[in-house]
Each structure stands twice: as C-alpha cells, then as structure tokens.
C-alpha cells in the first residue's frame, strides 16, 4: 500500500502491521460542513471563536513554558500533552474565526500578527506560574471552566463549533483530572505542601470572576458563562474539600480580557510567541 504522505499512512485503518506506533488516527472535522449556517451571525461567530481560540493559544503557551522545567520527566510529558491538546483546539478555533470573518486571515495570521489589545483571552490564561502549585491551581480552574463550556459548545448550531466542543471535552476532562489529582496530592500532603497549595489557590482565585462575566457576544451566541457557574462551583468545592483546602471568598478584579484589556504579562508572551513569524515574514523551512 502506498501513500503520498506519512499522515495518510497513519490515518489508514487497514495497514496496522507497518507501524510500531499507533494507527487509526481521525480528523475531528472530517465531513463537517464549513459554511456558516443560516441563523448564525458570522461576525458573532468569528468574535466568539477568537475568544475561545485565544484562551487555548495563550494557556497552551504558558504550559509550554514548563517544558524542561517540570519537577519530573513524566509530568513534563503530561504538561506538554495538555499544551498540545490546547494548541490543537486553538488552531481549529482560529481557523474557524478566520473563515467566519471572511477577510482572508488564517490561523497563523490571527496567532502571530495581532497585538495584545486585539487578543480576546481571559486573563487567567496569561498569568505566569511562580511554582508548580500555581500551575496546577490555574489549570484546575481553567479546565473546570472550559470543560463546562465545551460540553455546551457540542450543542452549537454551528457544526464546526459543535465538533470542536465534542473533541475538546474529552481532552479537557483529562486536563481537569490531572490538575485535580495534583491539587489533592499537594493539598492533602505535608504541612509545607498544603501551605503552598493554599497560597496558590488564593493567588489564582481573583481571576475566576472574569470567567463568568458574560460578554454580549457570548450572550448572543447563547453561551453565557454564568450559566455554568454553579457547575464550576460544585466541582471546585468538591476538589478543594478532598484536598483539605479552604475555598477563597470573593474573587474578582477589574479588567476584562474579552475586551482586549490584558495584564502587562501579555506583551512578554506575544514577544516570545510572535517573534520568529514577525522577524522572518513568510519564512518556510
């Protein structure tokens, strides 16, 4: 059996014997129509895809920064896998945003050629992690919130968003499991690990309020995040209780990433993320 490219061979189900590694890969968007369906506003769809795509892209970048710095080799691969899952979601969402926008911008143009004020991610995604406890606290909050979001996205009238939601929910279920496992392990660990895990949860918590402040685009897309606040609260309470940690009160600070208001950290992320593309426009290798 011959193939024009290695990917074709890997997606072939009847040719297992040739491969030492796994086969039977699938394209989550195979056969999904890409026209914007009637009844969906293209501008809103583009704006919403940008929000979700930027959340995934920036969170993925922050996770990638842990590669070579993780406390154990096994966790380094786990974190890299999670970063790759989110990068995959970002690629699909930014591609969809470009299609719906209709101005010829592809995923690369959107990822590499926008400035900080044009990014629509929540500020939780851009926060740096001073230590591993902060990383797992932030990942737990992010994954719990995003999983509830993706579950609803799977019912979207836009078939592409629905497919991304269904695919992403399986991935993010594992991200939440990974983060919750570590929060429990460190929280219900030694005195020192509990103290540091609690400090991390306390530090991340003020950024949770923004996750549930609905944007008008989210409301028009019937994806108002306040609808899954109760689900988020229930999961967080359960994990923090098992972890013997105190749930912080309050939890909101001024600023709104969905409107392009970002912390100073965003500029440093974009400098690293976009440097190559901007310094070698059109570069191929």
């Amino acid at each position, binding site marked *: 059996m011959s193939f024009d490219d290695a990917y074709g061979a890997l997606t072939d189900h009847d040719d297992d014997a040739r491969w030492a590694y796994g086969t039977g890969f699938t394209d989550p968007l195979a056969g999904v129509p890409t026209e914007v369906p009637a009844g969906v506003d293209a501008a809103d769809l583009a704006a919403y895809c940008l929000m979700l795509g930027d959340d995934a892209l920036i969170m993925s970048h922050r996770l990638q920064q842990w590669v070579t710095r993780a406390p154990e*080799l096994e966790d380094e*691969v*786990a974190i890299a896998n999670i970063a790759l899952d989110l990068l995959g979601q970002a690629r699909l969402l930014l591609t969809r945003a470009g299609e719906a926008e209709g101005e010829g911008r592809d995923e690369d143009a959107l990822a590499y050629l926008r400035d900080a004020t044009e990014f629509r991610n929540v500020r939780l995604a851009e926060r740096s992690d001073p230590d591993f406890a902060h990383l797992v606290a932030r990942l737990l909050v992010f994954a719990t919130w995003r999983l509830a979001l993706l579950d609803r996205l799977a019912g979207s009238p836009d078939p592409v968003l629905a497919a991304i939601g269904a695919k992403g929910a399986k991935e993010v279920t594992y991200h939440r499991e990974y983060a919750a496992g570590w929060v429990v*392990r460190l929280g219900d*660990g030694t005195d020192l690990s509990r103290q540091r895990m609690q400090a991390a949860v306390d530090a991340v918590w003020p950024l949770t309020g923004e996750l549930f402040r609905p944007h008008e685009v989210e409301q028009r897309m019937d994806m108002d995040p306040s609808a899954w606040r109760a689900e988020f609260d229930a999961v967080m309470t359960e994990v923090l209780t098992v972890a013997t940690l105190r749930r912080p009160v309050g939890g909101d600070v001024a600023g709104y990433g969905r409107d392009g208001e970002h912390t100073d950290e965003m500029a440093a992320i974009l400098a690293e993320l976009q440097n190559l593309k901007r310094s070698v426009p059109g570069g191929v290798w």
Partner: protein
Amino acid sequence: MTGEIKHEWPLFEVFVRAKRGLNHVHVGSLRAADPQMALHHARDLYTRRNEGVSIWVVRSDDVTASEPDDKAMFFEPSGDKVYRHPTYYAIPDSVPHI
C-alpha cells in the same frame, strides 16, 4: 500524611494492550508516587500516539523474574521438543494473532 518523605518515586512497569483481542505487552517503565499516578503517566508517555485501549501498571519490585544463571535449566530443555507445537492444524486466515 505522616512518615518519612521519600525523594525518589518507585519504579513501575507498564503494559499496554493495542486493541481488543490482543495481549497486554510490556512497553517500558516509569516513576510515579502511587499506582493511580503511574496509570496517568503511562497514558501520557506510552499511549499518546494512539497505541492502546488498555493499560496495566505494576510496581517493578513486585515482579519476580527468572535468573539469567538459570537459563540452561529453565529454557534449554524445551529446545528439542518440536512435537509440542500443534503444527498439524490448519489456522484460519481470520485468526491472525495465535
């Protein structure tokens, strides 16, 4: 949690089953604090290219292995007993993994 804090996680052996109907096959080892974490790490390290549908993890120090010095006694006696193979049966094409 009380007791001594260990600075190195124990070693686990990982077995992956590629698809229904096949056996679990040893694929490697990893370090983890407990069996549940070992299972997660095995998923991340050994099934990220779609290699498996089931994983077993076993503490390496729970594995009892044969001694290389016992090779003559253990394995060589079966070397000349070809009649132990069921060679007179025709194997159907639809049974590939026998």
